[in-house]
């Protein structure tokens, strides 16, 4: 019955290849012939009966990097384990979640809807085009692929899979194609070598624990003592703690080479690397409205500047190559902001909401949609391109069936020049001097991140649409072959798909969230 085409959640260009992530599959298209050349599927990891066994299975299948299998179990923090023990089976977990429906933990719900493979949530390519890097969501892994050609047939060959301590949200690759920069949910930015080396780094765990033979050393030594805790109850707790056995030493991180560069006390949303006047910079954006400019490796601990002006989360950063001195940022605000990032000065603002409202209006949708606060928009992608001597900036929004083209003027303001209507919500797009390839949501209704679209109209919607530049204006281009294959989307996966495709609105702070316990 359900013959919905699975949409692409993430697109990237790599040379003349289009890398397109579709659920847990990565498909590769030739941009010139617009045809499918290869496909890679993330190995199944079975529903979470026990997370550890599922992960072992993955690595067993994946064996190019066997050394990683061991740390995975220890990587899982105790918090996680506790959560799992609450509900042994996925079904039960689902039930639990529904019962105490706080509307909070979408991820947990997503994990329990019978998904069998981790989905790809971010893609990056090296500047030399040799490698593709993907983040798979549920197993928090960074996977590195090589564009390999066997008998002239393209194939994405997985070289390594590394499980990060927290789920990466943003990826960047250094210009020399040697280092991956990963920004995660927990606010930390790590660097790791692109090429995973088997030679294990001198592990923290192997540093010999001072071999004490005294009997009392098996007992736990609490950090608190009778001088630092005073209440009766805490004193009692301390006495109990002293009788406890020493916990097994926890390994504190993954065992492959990685380095903590910097961190926010907030969820990171995007990371960008930039070189200006011969200096390297790391730009990071977070959910708490900050854009931070740090020095590049090896001085990433030095913060050079903050760009403060957003009043809601920041979701995307874009630095035009022709104007390395400016930064364009967008997020949950009604405007795009243009910065003189070196001095943290705001140069201009460009209204977005008005343009989105026009699209709403054309589709006969009330802009307010019954909600009190009116229309909320969230930028999901900003791309710059130079066409015919003009700087153009293409912007996409979450759950909006249109792309917006702005011209970056000489005065560093953004002027709206074109609006492209699409048959479905924009999920991701790539821009090059030829034109635009955009991924369209085939499953969800226009303007909705949860509602399924009308079956009759859904059949005709192509998951990939192309547009080409003609005198700096985009006009419809030829279609892609091979993208229209019917990948069925089972009804029970719709919830999970919604969470995968539309995550930004969850970043918005809600009234009454985290209220004071007063």
């Amino acid at each position, binding site marked *: 019955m359900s013959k919905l085409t699975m949409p692409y959640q993430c697109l990237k260009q790599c040379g003349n290849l289009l890398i397109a992530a579709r659920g847990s599959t990565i498909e590769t298209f030739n941009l010139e012939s617009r045809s499918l050349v290869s496909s890679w599927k993330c190995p199944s990891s079975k529903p979470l009966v026990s997370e550890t066994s599922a992960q072992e299975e993955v690595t067993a299948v994946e064996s190019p990097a066997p050394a990683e299998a061991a740390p995975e179990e220890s990587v899982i923090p105790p918090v996680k384990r506790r959560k799992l023990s609450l509900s042994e089976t996925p079904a039960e977990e689902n039930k639990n979640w529904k019962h105490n429906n706080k509307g909070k933990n979408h991820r947990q719900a997503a994990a329990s809807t019978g998904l069998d493979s981790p989905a790809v949530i971010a893609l990056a390519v090296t500047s030399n085009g040799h490698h593709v890097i993907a983040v798979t969501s549920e197993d928090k892994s960074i996977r590195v692929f090589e564009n390999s050609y066997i008998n002239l047939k393209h194939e994405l060959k997985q070289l390594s899979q590394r499980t990060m301590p927290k789920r990466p949200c943003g990826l960047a690759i250094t210009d020399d194609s040697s280092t991956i920069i990963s920004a995660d949910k927990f606010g930390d930015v790590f660097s790791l070598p692109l090429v995973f080396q088997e030679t294990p780094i001198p592990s923290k765990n192997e540093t010999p624990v001072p071999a004490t033979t005294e009997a009392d050393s098996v007992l736990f030594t609490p950090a608190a003592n009778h001088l630092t805790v005073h209440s009766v109850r805490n004193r009692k707790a301390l006495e109990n703690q002293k009788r406890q056995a020493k916990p097994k030493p926890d390994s504190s991180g993954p065992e492959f080479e990685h380095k903590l560069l910097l961190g926010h006390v907030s969820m990171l949303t995007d990371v960008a690397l930039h070189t200006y006047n011969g200096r390297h910079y790391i730009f990071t954006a977070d959910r708490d409205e900050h854009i931070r400019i740090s020095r590049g490796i090896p001085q990433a601990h030095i*913060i050079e500047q903050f760009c403060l002006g957003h009043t809601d989360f920041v979701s995307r950063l874009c630095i035009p190559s022709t104007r390395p001195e400016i930064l364009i940022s967008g997020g949950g605000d009604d405007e795009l902001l243009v910065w003189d990032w070196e001095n943290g000065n705001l140069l201009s603002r460009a209204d977005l909401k008005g343009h989105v409202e026009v699209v709403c209006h054309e589709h006969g949708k009330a802009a307010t949609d019954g909600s009190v606060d009116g229309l909320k928009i969230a930028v999901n992608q900003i791309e710059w391109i130079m066409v015919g001597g003009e700087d153009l900036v293409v912007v996409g929004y979450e759950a909006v069936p249109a792309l917006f083209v702005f011209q970056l003027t000489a005065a560093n303001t953004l002027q709206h020049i074109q609006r492209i209507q699409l048959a479905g919500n924009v999920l991701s797009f790539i821009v090059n001097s030829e034109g635009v390839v955009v991924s369209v949501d085939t499953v969800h209704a226009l303007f909705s991140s949860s509602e399924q679209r009308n079956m009759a109209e859904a059949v005709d919607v192509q998951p990939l649409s192309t547009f080409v530049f003609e005198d700096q204006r985009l006009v419809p281009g030829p279609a892609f072959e091979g993208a229209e294959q019917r990948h069925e989307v089972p009804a029970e996966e719709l919830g999970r798909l919604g969470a995968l495709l539309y995550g930004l609105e969850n970043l918005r702070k809600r009234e009454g969230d985290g209220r004071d316990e007063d």
Partner: protein
Amino acid sequence: MSRFLFSKPRVTALLCPSTIMAGPPNKRQKREEYKTSQREDGTAELPKKKFYRQRAHANPFSDHQLTYPISPDHMDWAEYYPAFISPEPNPVSESTAVPAAPSTPKKLTRQVEVADIGCGFGGLLVSLAPELPDTLLLGMEIRAQVAEYVQERVKALRVQNSGTELYQNAGCVRANTMKFLPNFFNKSQLSKIFLCFPDPHFKARKHKARIVSTTLNSEYAYVVRPGGIVYTITDVEDLHNWMVSHFDAHLSFERVSEEEQEADKCVAIMRTETEEGKKVERNKGKKFVALFRRIENPPW
């Protein structure tokens, strides 16, 4: 100083029925009554701590309902340091109480230079203020009730000392500095930061919530000018070692020598005048002090 060694959900569950029935409404009511009477009087009487008590822990990762400036330039310091409002610009808007355009706050004659992060009930702040009369001091506290107490305390002290400049240079904001420190201060604005008796977060799982970490130290390095000093004191040796190792590991800081540390008058005040310091004294606990100097950024 209620510190969690174990989570105690069961105990609180047992306590719940009684607290729901009798506790909070009564307490809240009394608190409200007290505060309205205080407001009416506007007197020199110091606020009573018992009406401002709040659970000693706040989750720094939660959103709370914080108000914070979009950027340091948006911060209106005038209400915190009315004696330091610069007389020159926009003298017209003086009369109306409503700040017409929040984007152009009144200028002060000087900037805040000392921040007491996690100032608690403000003991250090009010002891330090007369010692550094030419410097603006800001207490920052995440617990709303406690921050309000310090604000009232400063107000009362100003009234008590009216006619003098005393305590005009002290202020307090409610803030989560772990998230929003750069929203309050520009690069290199501060000369001193105090981190006094921070929440030790004993459990390894909670270490990320500690006020000192390699990644947060970068933010302290951003707001503190080269030569500026970060003061730390705690009664928990484990936390002291943690803070020392994390500041030592950060290339923007160096440890201040013992002699120099003991010669600093702020150290003595920090030892004896903070509420926690007094409490540790009473319980005959140890106090561990460490100071770190912000060094110049290397060329690049």
